[in-house]
């Protein structure tokens, strides 16, 4: 009998195997957590398939009848498609710009020594701790005043929201990308420079391709941040630029709430980000690890 077969047969009772107390703790705790996580997801999915009578009366675990009507109705009851387009444009533009700005900044922090580097990184990171409410009021005034002075409509426009959102994800993106760039051997871009590449060419030819997972992670993070933001969206948008964050909330606080439709709409607006995130989550974990190693 080979050693390998022997080891395989013996494994369940080997001293390395976790004891029963651990296995049971693991089963129970993980089952409870899974239940906790799934509960709202179940409510969202099942209620979105119920007819209106079912969600207006007592809650039922098992729907009495299934219907896809709510998914058709949501587009007529509120201008959901408009909200969707607004959210998509704002979040998409904020993501692309934020990632581009973060790549340049992280390249500088990772590859150069310069005066004020520490001040820059500390200041940028510490903006993360400011209460949003502190700069909401002044930013509101700045945008209104810029509009009055120059005619550039930042308040109430998509552009103003894009500008705001792209800075929200910037600190974390710079921090994470710096960690990623640091983990790429300097010899690679030095070699490219010996071959006659300038610093910018070296960045795009060597570092950006090598850091693709980190860049993807940062992009996902930036998109999610913009897609889910509520506070600034509720103050800085008007009827035509309203994003999903504001629109959906209005939908859920009408006098007569069609809960099945609201659940269907919630599900529809969640799908793009949840699917994107879950597909790309391993990059985010890897990115966090790279940042943590630093």
């Amino acid at each position: 009998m080979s050693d390998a077969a022997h080891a395989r047969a013996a494994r369940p009772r080997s001293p390395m195997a976790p004891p029963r107390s651990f296995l049971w703790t693991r089963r129970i705790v993980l089952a409870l957590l899974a239940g906790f996580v799934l509960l709202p997801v179940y409510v969202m999915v099942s209620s979105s398939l119920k007819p209106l009578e079912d969600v207006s009366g007592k809650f039922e675990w098992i729907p009495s009848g299934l219907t896809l009507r709510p998914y058709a109705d949501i587009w007529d009851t509120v201008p959901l498609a408009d909200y969707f387009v607004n959210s998509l444009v704002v979040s998409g533009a904020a993501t692309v710009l934020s990632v581009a700005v973060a790549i340049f900044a992280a390249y500088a922090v990772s590859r150069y020594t310069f005066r004020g580097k520490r001040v820059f990184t500390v200041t940028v990171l510490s903006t993360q701790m400011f209460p949003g409410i502190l700069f909401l009021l002044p930013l509101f005034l700045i945008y209104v005043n810029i509009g009055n002075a120059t005619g550039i409509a930042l308040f109430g426009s998509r552009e103003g929201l894009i500008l705001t959102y792209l800075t929200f994800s910037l600190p974390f993106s710079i921090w994470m990308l710096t960690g990623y760039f640091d983990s790429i051997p300097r010899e690679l871009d030095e070699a490219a420079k010996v071959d006659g590449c300038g610093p910018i060419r070296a960045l795009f030819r060597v570092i950006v391709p090598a850091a693709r997972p980190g860049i993807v992670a940062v992009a996902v993070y930036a998109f999610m941040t913009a897609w889910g933001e509520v506070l600034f969206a509720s103050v800085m948008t008007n009827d035509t630029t309203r994003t999903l964050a504001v629109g959906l909330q209005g939908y859920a606080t009408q006098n007569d709430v069609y809960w099945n439709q609201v659940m269907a709409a919630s599900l529809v607006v969640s799908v793009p980000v949840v699917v994107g995130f879950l597909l790309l989550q391993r990059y985010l974990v890897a990115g966090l690890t790279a940042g943590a190693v630093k």
Partner: protein
Amino acid sequence: MTQTAVTPTREPAVRKATPGGARTTRRSGRRRLALPYLLLLPALLLELLVHLVPMLMGIAMSFKELTQFYIRDWASAPWSGLDNFSVSLDFDGAVGQSLLKSFLTTCQFTLLSVGLCWLLGTAAAILLQENFRGRGFLRTLFLVPYALPVYAAVITWAFMFQRDNGLINHVLHDQLGMGDSPAFWLIGDNSFWALLAVSVWKGWPFAFLTVMAGLQNIPRDMYEAAALDGAGIWKQIRHITLPSLRSVNQVLVLVLFLWTFNDFNTPFVLFGEAAPEAADLISLHIYQSSFQTWNFGTGSAMSVLLLLFLLLVTGVYLLLTSRGRKTSDV
């Protein structure tokens, strides 16, 4: 800006850091020194526009009598010294009293929420460390609350907490027979617990994600060595895993604290603009008192006080945790 930032005395230090710098001529050396600043320029300008200038403006506004008459031209609002602060901190007056109450509610809420998020996240990450069947699925599942947009998740919870057609009352009242009549969850004292449940549900996956990333940095042979010495899995968790997570925890707890204390989205979507008193978190409180009365001066003073409090807590926290770490390392 970029050229003046480079002083001749500084050059040698920078040269040393960039190999090959000594070979370049003086002019291209200068350009090379300007480059990092050019690369940073977009980030810097944006941070200035959206974060730093508004923050300084907010501080200036807190010393002004900034009511709706001056919104169009805030600079012309009269200075009012420390009036806004004394109104906010006068705990006998109506404004100060409600601010203090909101502050205490927020403290209580944050302690509970951060504690629970940390506990659940760490437990899940440690229990999912070893490979077993279903591990990948659970890991993905646990990240779903983090991936869902805040408003979609919170609206679903708001539906679950409805008095007459929500799931929570169906389970507690109809199925378990608790209470004489179905409870209200989104108004009154219960709203605190409703908010806490939503906040933990939404927040713990981030702790899970961070701890999971931290666990990947623990060398495997530490566990193997411990196992050879006869340490069981519980001992390994206590003596290897948890101590190795110290530095990750230091950052994680701070970030969770700041996010939870400043949280606006969860109560705003759960309750609408007017939160019940039991769940009146400070950000929403400031927002409401600013936009309801259009008294931005007092609102700014409250925000500045909040910022000072957060700075103080962060400073003390970093001091304490870093010192504790140094002594334990020795």
